[in-house]
């Protein structure tokens, strides 16, 4: 049984035609199901968890990365499959791209093919994530890794925790099936000719704790929280995600 979670933004008239095509294609493929429309005061987590209790086996986020994040948070340890039908700009659908799910109506065929991959989830202070989390400007942070050693940037640093990301010029892709998260620390210094120079440290971890004397803001798959301490862990093979043939991990 499929349960479709429509994000609030796709109820905008400019997505009406695309949505209509998606619904027609889902009916043709015989995988249409119940629809929930998110709104300002409708809690996605409660809606989805109620539907899982009623027997939903696949929860489909219809929207963007933020929609998928809401679904992942709600699904937690239930074991149901998660999928996405990306709607909107490619920049807001990075996760779907990595999962190999094309935007719009073509995604329905990926959904129908049901290629399910078990992938790791990240957890920061109880918030689940699929892609990454970032602290843009951490002052004197201390990162205790796997309970064995401490990492201490000697300058202001940005700290990123990656689970499922594409390669960057200075950092390799994060693999969501390796049972680890990648901590990426970027510090800024100056070269001997005074030019700005960013140094990049990369450390794979299963467990980490980031603390700072000042309150830090972390953005977890687009959602921000603030705290002085972040407890981070990987939950191996926790999510069952429907992927396309073009997946990038």
């Amino acid at each position: 049984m499929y349960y479709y979670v429509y994000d609030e933004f796709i109820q905008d008239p400019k997505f009406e035609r695309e949505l209509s095509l998606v619904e027609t294609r889902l009916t043709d493929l015989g995988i249409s199901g119940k629809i929930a429309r998110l709104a300002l005061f409708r809690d996605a987590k409660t809606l989805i968890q109620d539907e899982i209790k009623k027997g939903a086996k696949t929860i489909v986020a219809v929207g963007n990365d933020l929609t998928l994040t809401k679904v992942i948070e709600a699904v937690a340890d239930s074991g149901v499959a998660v999928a996405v039908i990306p709607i909107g700009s490619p920049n807001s659908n990075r996760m779907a791209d990595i999962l190999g799910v094309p935007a719009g109506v073509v995604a329905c065929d990926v959904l129908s093919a049901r290629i399910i991959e078990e992938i790791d989830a990240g957890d920061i202070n109880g918030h689940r994530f699929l892609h990454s989390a970032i602290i843009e400007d951490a002052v004197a942070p201390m990162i205790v890794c796997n309970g064995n050693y401490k990492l201490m940037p000697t300058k202001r640093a940005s700290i990123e925790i990656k689970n499922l990301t594409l390669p960057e010029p200075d950092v390799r892709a994060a693999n969501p099936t390796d049972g680890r998260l990648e901590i990426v620390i970027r510090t800024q210094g100056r070269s001997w000719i005074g030019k700005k120079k960013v140094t990049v440290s990369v450390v794979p971890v299963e467990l980490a704790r980031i603390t700072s004397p000042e309150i830090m803001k972390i953005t977890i798959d687009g959602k921000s929280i603030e705290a002085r301490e972040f407890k981070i862990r990987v939950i191996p093979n926790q999510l069952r995600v429907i992927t396309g043939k073009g997946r990038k991990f």
Partner: protein
Amino acid sequence: MAKQTGAETIIALGVRVEGEFISSGDVVIEGEVTGTIQTSGDLRVGTDSKIRADVVAQNATVSGEIRGNIQVSGRLDLLESARMIGDVTANVLSVSPGAQVNGKITMDGRDVEVPEDQEADSE
């Protein structure tokens, strides 16, 4: 911007590590480490790095400073700017001109054997 090295773990300049640093892949260290370093992969210690730790690795290339014992089961390359203060154990050792080694060197765990005729000559 730094380029990808292919190493699994990178400790760049501007980051200090304290404690038991254990890895199962290749490690590049450009920053500071205090404690112990242990990897079943290869280790590269950069020019500006300062390590105060006992080190165990499969192979290692050192350009920076290590204060502590290093044990390498394969090949150890001490490059020109390397400064080693501690005992070295390696199967294959390469020391570039300019590299400093202050410590005992043990290779393959065997004593150095002097050929018999050479012993006779010296008598």
